[in-house]
């Protein structure tokens, strides 16, 4: 490209774009954008020198990108987006009403660091981790640093994160800080600074892995040419470390990842990491402490846990000794750690060192403890607990960023850079009142790196998070990390909660890199297991309800479809008589109970509305689409999505997608007012297909282990229950033996084809009821469900030889059906429900909820915990 066109491109930029938005318009030039043709700015740019030349370590990446050409590049970016979605990479945003789960924003242009620079960062980070470990060990041990004056007592005693119950706990191998991450920023002079220390739960290592998998797949040429260090080795170190920390020397210690649950912002990565590392993902309620040891509650009983990789916050870990309002923790956990029976990584209390106030003391402590200068500086920090710092901060409020020194909410704080006179006075008075609670730092000007914005390559501020793990030979640094990208220029902090993307970090090697497969877990003796017997009770509960809701949605869809098919607004009551059993079933299930806006009284509403075609139509549509209507299809699918989320780490991504597609299908349907019955029928047909694929995935793509068994159990019970309710209503109809009513029975029971293949005649009441009730070869028949349930009971863990309460109930149901002969129905001409068949249906419908309850008592008894106080002191 000539200098002339280059100038044009630049001048067009100047006029069209605000000064701080440096953008390259692909359309401004004829050929692929000159990727390295960016005007220099005051900020440090990762890819360009101040003179505008490409930095050497970025050449290979840019060459590779340029070679792809713009069409192929765009295809790759599109692939990246698709991969993120397919992998289901998400991030939860608290308080986001539009569905809290947000797709992970991956910027597919990697962040590059050259080998030499990385080595110096690495050395600085290792030193910092060692230093922090020493400080933690001292604060939770002898506290010499306080006595010697190296550490102001306020930094420890004034902090809510100094957890006194954890004082004196001695972790194995003296490792207080097992995992550590540092946030780094590069200032305009090119130096790296630590902006924050993550000493408690260094989040993002899972996202870094996910980013790598996507980025290396869409840019394989560049990934190969750049000689990028692999990440797998780091995760192996993690596994080794955790295994070595088991209190007893075991070949196969049980390591679990303790999660706060699916609502946590980084739940995705917790599930992802657990799966990748081969650990069970558990919630606090899955664990129990007995004899000062931690156990996992499984269907088969209690299994001892040796090591806990913790994602629950420090003070939430144990409601007995720490925050007593925590429902995320495990009562007795701290005592178990104190007794040395379990290792928790990191030890609760480690968030103490996350306070920015410590940064002001690290250089002195490094000299005092390590006898070394701090290699990697922290962002300039003033802790107001020191008189000189307090004075300095109050005089330089405009140039500094004042924040809480500890995790307290403080009065007088604003996020604004510009303070009004009144705000400043207020802040100063609060600083003077409790100076030790305030810290001030310099504003950080982040460096910029190439990033993708709407298909265009632009410059965006970036920060870098790097991860470390303690190993036998000191700390190991992940050769990579998580780079976070601000959404626009001029932003000086990057937060996932406030939006913004992330990118893969490529640490370049000077030598060719050994190719390690990321997804192998070799290096460990794998114990082959055919049937997992250790399903946590809580998951079994969720699987059971997943099955029930899936089936209820399916049954409801069929009922609604049959009703809409028969419903035509022009026709009067005559035809709609045959609708009666369908409508009654829907009423009994709650979907149609108050569908007319005029009639409030529930008792008379249905009957009245049935005569009013418009009200009926509105009611049927509401039963499909209204998210506030109890039992509406939309609501059922919502429950299904929610439960699918709870078991997400145990099911395939396809299942999760199928649930979400169903949700989207109903949520995105046109407004109810303009919707016609015919449109709704189309949507119901789609919904049935969606449910079929959901059910297929749920049943077929899972191993026939206990998870699958509980899904199927839930489905069978629900199917039996829905069928009984519907048959009950059908037998109530005065025209129960009318062929068109019987046809409807076959349709709802999805047995029309089976009937035709067996009987070459119009539907006959005895034959139809035999087929849908008693035929044990018909997978839709009631008896078939009962038999399946019985088989599951045989396979589930139970006390030897005992007949369980649920088995007793089931046997009653079974023998009742065995004795039945539906031919008796032919002899009747009315009052069908009073027949033996009718009684059997009514009795079974009564027994099924009892059966469900008995299962819950046997298998899901993970009772709520609560706390008891000691009474107050008068």
């Amino acid at each position, binding site marked *: 490209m000539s200098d002339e066109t280059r100038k044009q491109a630049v001048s067009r930029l100047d006029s069209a774009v605000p000064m701080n938005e440096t953008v390259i318009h692909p359309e401004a030039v004829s050929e692929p954008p000159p990727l390295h043709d960016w005007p220099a700015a005051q900020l440090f740019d990762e890819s360009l020198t101040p003179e505008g030349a490409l930095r050497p370590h970025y050449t290979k990446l840019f060459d590779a990108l340029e070679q792809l050409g713009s069409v192929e590049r765009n295809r790759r970016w599109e692939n990246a987006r698709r991969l993120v979605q397919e992998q289901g990479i998400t991030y939860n945003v608290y308080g986001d009403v539009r569905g809290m789960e947000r797709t992970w924003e991956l910027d597919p242009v990697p962040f590059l660091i050259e080998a030499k620079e990385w080595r110096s960062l690495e050395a600085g980070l290792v030193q910092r981790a060692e230093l922090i470990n020493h400080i933690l060990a001292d604060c939770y041990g002898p506290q010499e640093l306080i*006595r010697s004056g190296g550490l102001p007592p306020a930094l420890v005693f004034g902090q809510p994160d100094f957890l006194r119950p954890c004082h004196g706990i001695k972790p194995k191998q003296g490792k207080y800080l097992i995992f550590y991450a540092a946030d780094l920023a590069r200032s305009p002079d090119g130096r790296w600074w630590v902006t924050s220390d993550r000493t408690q739960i260094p989040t993002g290592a899972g996202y870094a892995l996910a980013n790598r998998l996507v980025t290396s797949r869409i840019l394989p040429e560049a990934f190969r040419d750049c000689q990028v260090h692999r990440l797998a080795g780091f995760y192996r170190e993690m596994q080794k470390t955790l295994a070595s920390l088991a209190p007893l020397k075991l070949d196969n210690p049980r390591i679990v990842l303790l999660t706060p649950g699916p609502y946590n912002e980084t739940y995705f990565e917790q599930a992802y990491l657990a799966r990748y590392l081969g650990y069970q993902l558990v919630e606090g309620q899955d664990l129990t402490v007995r004899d000062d040891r931690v156990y996992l509650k499984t269907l088969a009983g209690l299994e001892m846990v040796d090591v806990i990789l913790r994602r629950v916050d420090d003070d939430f870990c144990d409601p*007995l000794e720490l925050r007593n309002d925590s429902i995320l923790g495990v009562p007795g956990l701290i005592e178990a750690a104190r007794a040395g029976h379990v290792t928790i990584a990191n030890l609760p209390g480690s968030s103490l060192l996350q306070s920015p106030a410590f940064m002001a003391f690290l250089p002195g402590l490094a000299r005092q403890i390590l006898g070394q200068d701090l290699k990697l500086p922290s962002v300039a920090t003033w802790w107001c607990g020191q*008189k000189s710092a307090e004075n300095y901060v109050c005089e330089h409020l405009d140039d500094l960023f004042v924040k809480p020194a500890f995790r307290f909410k403080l009065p007088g704080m604003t996020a604004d850079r510009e303070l009004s006179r009144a705000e400043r006075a207020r802040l100063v008075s609060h600083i003077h009142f409790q100076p030790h609670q305030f810290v001030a730092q310099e504003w950080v000007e982040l460096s910029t790196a190439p990033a993708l914005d709407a298909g265009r390559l632009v410059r965006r501020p970036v920060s870098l998070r790097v991860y470390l793990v303690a190993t036998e030979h000191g700390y190991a640094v992940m050769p990579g990390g998580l780079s976070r990208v601000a959404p626009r220029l001029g932003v000086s902090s990057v937060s996932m909660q406030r939006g913004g993307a992330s990118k893969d970090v490529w640490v370049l090697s000077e030598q060719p890199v050994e190719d390690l497969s990321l997804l192998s877990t070799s290096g460990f003796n794998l114990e082959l297991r055919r049937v997992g017997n250790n399903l946590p009770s809580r998951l079994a509960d969720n699987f059971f309800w997943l099955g029930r809701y899936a089936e209820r949605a399916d049954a409801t869809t069929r009922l609604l479809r049959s009703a809409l098919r028969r419903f035509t607004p022009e026709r009067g009551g005559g035809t709609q008589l045959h609708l009666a059993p369908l409508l009654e079933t829907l009423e009994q299930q709650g979907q149609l109970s108050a569908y007319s806006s005029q009639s409030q009284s529930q008792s008379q509403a249905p009957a009245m509305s049935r005569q009013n075609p418009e009200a009926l139509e509105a009611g049927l549509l509401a039963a499909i689409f209204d998210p506030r209507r109890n039992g509406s299809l939309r609501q059922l699918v919502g429950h299904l999505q929610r439960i699918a989320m709870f078991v997400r780490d145990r099911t395939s991504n396809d299942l999760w997608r199928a649930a979400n597609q169903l949700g989207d299908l109903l949520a995105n349907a046109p407004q109810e007012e303009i919707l016609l019955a015919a449109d709704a029928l189309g949507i119901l047909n789609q919904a049935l297909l969606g449910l079929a694929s959901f059910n297929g995935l749920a049943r077929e793509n899972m191993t026939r282990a206990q998870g699958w068994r509980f899904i199927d159990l839930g489905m069978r019970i629900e199917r039996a229950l829905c069928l009984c309710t519907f048959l009950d209503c059908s037998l109530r109809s005065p025209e129960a033996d009318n062929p068109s009513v019987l046809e409807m029975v076959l349709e709802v029971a999805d047995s029309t084809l089976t009937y035709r293949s067996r009987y070459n005649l119009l539907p006959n009441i005895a034959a139809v009821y035999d087929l849908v009730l008693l035929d044990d070869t018909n997978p839709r028949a009631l008896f078939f469900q009962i038999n399946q349930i019985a088989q599951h009971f045989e396979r589930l863990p139970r006390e030897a030889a005992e007949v369980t309460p649920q088995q007793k109930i089931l046997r009653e149901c079974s023998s009742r059906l065995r004795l039945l002969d539906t031919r008796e129905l032919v002899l009747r001409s009315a009052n069908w429900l009073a027949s033996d068949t009718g009684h059997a249906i009514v009795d079974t419908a009564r027994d099924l909820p009892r059966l469900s309850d008995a299962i819950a008592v046997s298998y899901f008894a993970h009772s709520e915990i609560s706390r008891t106080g*000691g*009474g107050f002191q008068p």
Partner: protein
Amino acid sequence: MTYNLIHTTIYEYAEPVTVSHHAARVEPRALPKQQIEQFLLEIGPTPAVQQSRVDFFGNQVCGFSIQEIHQRLEVTARSRVHVVALPPPDPGLSAGWERVRQLFSDPVSPEVVAPYQFVFDSPLLAASLELADYARKSFAAHTPLLEAVADLNRRIYTDFKYDPTATTVATPLEAVLAQRAGVCQDFAHLAIACVRSLGLPARYVSGYLRTRPPEGQKRLVGADASHAWFAVFCPGVGWVDFDPTNNVLPAEEHISVAFGRDYSDVSPVSGVITGGGKHEVHVSVDVEPLE
């Protein structure tokens, strides 16, 4: 004076409890003014695990777990304690309060590292300008520390009404301050937060108080209650106790059990249970003086 103390805590649960974990801080502390001659902790049902340790504040805490199904838990602490009345410090001779505050500000003097942690906000108590204002009336310039605190102690006693119905264990300090009523726990908390709002260290004391029956009546067994007061650190003297509920300086009628930053550090019997549904707590305390 020697006392026989019986402190019984009973939990009754509406539904069976499958497993429970508890921490009990009911063993009186050994102090220059009190010797523990006997201590016995009875727990029913018998815990599967039970061990005593010393917590961060030097209190004896007994952790125990019950792993059998139960609907009732009874914890009884029996102690015999000998308390002597040490000669009280002369308030007028204590250091001026500003000088004490100076000791606790930057840079920290090594002699006060131990009490330093009682200067800061704690789980239930936060310093505020409002509390500092209330306290300052007792803290005129150059007032000796103990005189100032004794005056604060007296003002809380006169300004606030003792009313067991006014607060619960969860009532925040602002509410106590607004309604000018509460119980011993509230008054101790109030005093501590006031003292800390001035930059001085104060701690919570949980314990028992000898009660005297009305003239001519017999002492009622088990009718006593656990009690709470506060202490202030005075350089050269140590911790000095004040009881704002009764406007006294505790001597041989107060028996100290546990120290902490506030009630949350010294709750006598706390626990986390699995199952149980609703529960009721009954506490009875008997302070029997032996002649």
